[in-house]
C-alpha cells in the first residue's frame, strides 16, 4: 500500500528502538525570543549544551518595535527578553538574526525565504504557526517551551504518530478570491477543533494553482482548525520557489536535490484517515465576525444570529457577539473599522503587499482609520521598496513600518485600544489578541486595503 507524504517524512525521521518511545529527528529548529528563554535556562541548570547549533536558527520577531532601529525598545520587560535571546545565542553558539539584521523577520517568513525550510524535512519552532512551512512539503509544527528545550538538548522530539486528513479543494478560485479567503472557509467548515490529532494535506486543483506564498497562507492557519501541521506536496512551483535561495545549493547540485525533493508527494494509492472536500468556486471574500477563526461570514453577508448556531455553541456565539459589539442582521459592509493591520506570518509576504498596494494605489485611507503595513522581513521590505510599494502606501496614508509580528498579537507597542475594531490580515481574532478589549476581524490583504480606504468592510470592487 502507498504512503502519504506525512508517512514518508515520518518514516525518514523516526528513531525507534524495539519497545522504545519513537523519537522524531528535527532537521531545522527555529527559535525566537518569547518561547526560548526558559528553555535555555533549563540547559544551563543541567549543564547541557545545544546538540546541533548548525540546525538551530534564531531571530527576534514577537517583541520588536516596528519603528526604525534608532528607536530603543521602550518596554523594559521586552528589552530584557530580547537581550536574553542575544546572550543565549552567544553562549550556546546559535546563529541569530537580531533586530535590524538584514535576515531578520517573522520566523515563518524568513525560514522559507532564506531557503532553510526544505521539502521532506522536519521543522519545529516554539510557535503554533510553524505549520506555515508545510507549504514546502516539510513536516512543520509548533511546540511548547519544554519541547524547545528537548530539541535544543537532543535534536529530537518524543512523538506519537498523528492521523492524516486530506483537505481537497477542487476547481478554481474565482477572480479576486485569495488563499486567505480559502483557508478561512476551510477553518469555518472544520471548526476550531475539527483537525485535532490530525496532520492535514491540502490537495486538489485549487491548491496546485496557488503560488508558494498563497500555500504558506493556507498552511499557516492549519492550527486554527486544530491541526498541528498542514502539508502540500512538492511540485514545480515548490522547486522554482527554492531555486536561488541563499540556503539551497546552486547549479547541478540544486538539480540533483530537486530530483530528490520531487519524491515528497503522497502515493496515488495512499489512504488518509479522513478527508474533506471543498469546491473552490464556492469560496467568496470572507470576514470573521466573532472571537475564534471559525466564526466566518461572507463579506457580502450579514452578522449571523445565534439561532443559526448549534445548541451547544449558542452560549459561545452570544458571548462573541457581545464582545464584538455586533447586532445580528447588520450587513458586514456597514461595519466601520478604526484600524487596519496588514502583516503577520499569515499575510506579510511580497505578494500580500502587492495585492494591498494595487488597491491602495491612487486612493486615500479614510480619515477615521489608522492603517499599518508591516512587512514580514527585511528582505520583503527591501523588495517592496525596490518595487515602489512603500511610496504607494505612504501616499495613500498607510504607515510603512519595520518587520516583526507587530499587531498580530500586540506584544510590541502596536496594539488596539479597548473598544477599537480592526480589519487584520493576521490569523487570530481571540478576545484581546491585538490589545485588551480590541475587536479583531480577519480578512485578506486586498479586503484589508479596501476597508482602510472605505472606512468600513469593503472589497476592491466596491471602491470608486
Amino acid at each position, binding site marked *: 500500500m502507498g504512503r502519504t507524504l506525512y508517512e514518508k517524512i515520518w518514516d525518514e525521521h523516526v*528513531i525507534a*528502538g524495539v519497545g*522504545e518511545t519513537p*523519537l522524531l*529527528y528535527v*532537521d*531545522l529548529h527555529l527559535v525566537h525570543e*518569547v*518561547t526560548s*528563554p526558559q528553555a535555555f535556562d533549563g540547559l544551563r541548570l543541567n549543564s*547541557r549544551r545545544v546538540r546541533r547549533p*548548525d*540546525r538551530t536558527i534564531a531571530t527576534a520577531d514577537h*517583541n520588536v518595535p516596528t519603528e526604525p532601529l534608532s528607536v530603543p525598545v521602550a518596554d523594559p*520587560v*521586552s528589552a*530584557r*527578553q530580547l537581550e536574553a535571546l542575544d546572550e543565549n*545565542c552567544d553562549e550556546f553558539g546559535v*546563529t541569530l*538574526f*537580531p533586530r535590524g*539584521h538584514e*535576515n531578520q523577520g517573522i520566523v515563518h517568513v524568513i525560514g522559507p525565504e532564506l*531557503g*532553510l525550510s526544505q521539502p521532506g524535512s522536519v521543522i519545529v519552532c516554539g*510557535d*503554533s504557526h510553524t505549520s506555515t512551512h508545510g507549504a514546502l512539503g516539510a513536516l512543520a509544527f509548533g*511546540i*511548547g*517551551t*519544554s519541547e524547545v528545550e*528537548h530539541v535544543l*538538548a*537532543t*535534536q529530537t522530539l*518524543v512523538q*506519537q504518530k498523528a492521523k492524516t486528513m486530506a483537505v481537497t479543494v477542487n476547481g478554481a478560485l474565482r477572480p479576486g478570491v485569495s488563499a486567505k479567503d480559502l483557508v478561512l472557509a476551510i477553518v469555518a467548515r472544520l471548526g*476550531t*477543533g475539527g483537525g485535532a*490529532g490530525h496532520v492535514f494535506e491540502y490537495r486538489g486543483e485549487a491548491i496546485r494553482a496557488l503560488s508558494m506564498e498563497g500555500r504558506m497562507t493556507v498552511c499557516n492557519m492549519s*492550527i486554527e482548525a*486544530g491541526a*498541528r501541521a498542514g502539508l502540500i506536496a512538492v511540485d514545480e512551483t515548490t522547486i522554482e520557489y527554492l531555486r536561488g535561495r*541563499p*540556503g*539551497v*545549493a546552486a547549479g547541478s547540485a540544486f538539480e540533483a*536535490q530537486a530530483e530528490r525533493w520531487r519524491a515528497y508527494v503522497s502515493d496515488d494509492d495512499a489512504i488518509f484517515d479522513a478527508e474533506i472536500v471543498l469546491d473552490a468556486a464556492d469560496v467568496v471574500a470572507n470576514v470573521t465576525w466573532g472571537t*475564534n477563526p471559525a466564526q466566518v461570514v461572507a463579506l457580502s453577508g450579514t452578522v449571523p444570529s445565534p439561532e443559526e448556531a448549534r445548541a451547544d455553541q449558542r*452560549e*459561545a456565539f452570544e458571548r462573541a457577539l457581545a464582545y464584538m459589539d455586533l447586532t445580528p442582521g447588520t450587513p458586514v459592509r456597514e461595519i466601520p473599522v478604526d484600524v487596519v493591520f496588514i502583516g503577520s506570518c499569515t499575510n506579510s509576504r511580497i505578494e500580500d503587499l502587492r495585492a494591498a498596494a494595487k488597491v491602495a494605489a491612487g486612493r486615500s485611507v479614510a480619515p477615521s482609520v489608522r492603517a499599518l503595513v508591516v512587512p514580514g522581513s527585511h528582505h520583503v521590505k527591501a523588495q517592496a521598496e525596490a518595487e515602489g510599494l512603500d511610496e504607494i502606501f505612504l501616499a495613500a496614508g498607510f504607515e510603512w513600518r519595520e518587520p516583526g509580528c507587530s499587531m498580530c*498579537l500586540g*506584544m510590541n507597542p502596536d496594539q488596539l485600544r479597548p473598544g477599537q475594531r480592526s480589519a487584520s490580515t493576521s490569523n*487570530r481574532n*481571540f*478576545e*484581546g*489578541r491585538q490589545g*485588551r478589549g480590541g475587536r479583531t476581524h480577519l480578512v485578506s490583504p486586498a479586503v484589508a486595503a479596501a476597508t482602510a480606504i472605505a472606512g468600513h468592510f469593503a472589497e476592491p470592487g466596491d471602491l470608486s
Partner: protein
Amino acid sequence: MKAVHVVEGRAVPLERADVDTDQIIPSEWLKRVERTGFGRGLFSEWRDDPAFVLNQAEYAGASILVAGPRFGTGSSREHAVWALMDYGFEAVIAPSFGDIFRNNSSKQGLVIVQMPPEDVANLTRLVKEDPSRHVVVDVENLVVEVPEANWQRPFALEAATRERLLNGWDDIGLTLRRDEEITSYERGHGNPSWAGLLTS
C-alpha cells in the same frame, strides 16, 4: 517534574467553550523570561469581573478546573500551563483540548482529563450544587470520582503520558540516554545544505 498519582480537591466550573491559550494567559505576560509567577496573569482579562467564577469565595483553593470543549486551543505558549499550575491547578477536566496545550501539560505534570461532554456536564452540576465537594482524579486507575455524591467515571490517557506522570520522568534525561542511537541516525542523515551559507 514531580510525580502525580492522585489529584484531590475542590473543582471550579469554568462553563465556557473555546477558551484559547490567549485567554488563559494574554500575550503581555509572555515577555517575561522567568518560569514562575504566571498565576497572577491567569485569565487576567476576566479576573477584574467580581462575578467571574475564580473570584467566588466558595471555590477558593481549588486544584481542579472543569472546562468547556476545545480548552487550550491556539498559541503554543507553555505559559498557559505555567499559569494554571502557578495558580494552584493540578488537573483540568474538559470534553476536548488543543493538541499542543495537552502536550505541554504532560511535560509539566498538569493532568489532562478528557471526558465525554455529558460526564463533564454532570460533574459541573455536582460541583455547582455544592462547591465544597471534593473531586478526585486518580491517574493510577484512570477514574474521576466525587466520593460524597457517589459519582465515578473512567477516563482515557495515553499510556506513555500516564507512565510519565506516575514516575515524574524528565524526558530530556531519558532521551539523552539514547545518545548513541541519535548519533548513529545522524551519520546516515547528512548535514543541512545551509550550513556555512548563513552567518550572523
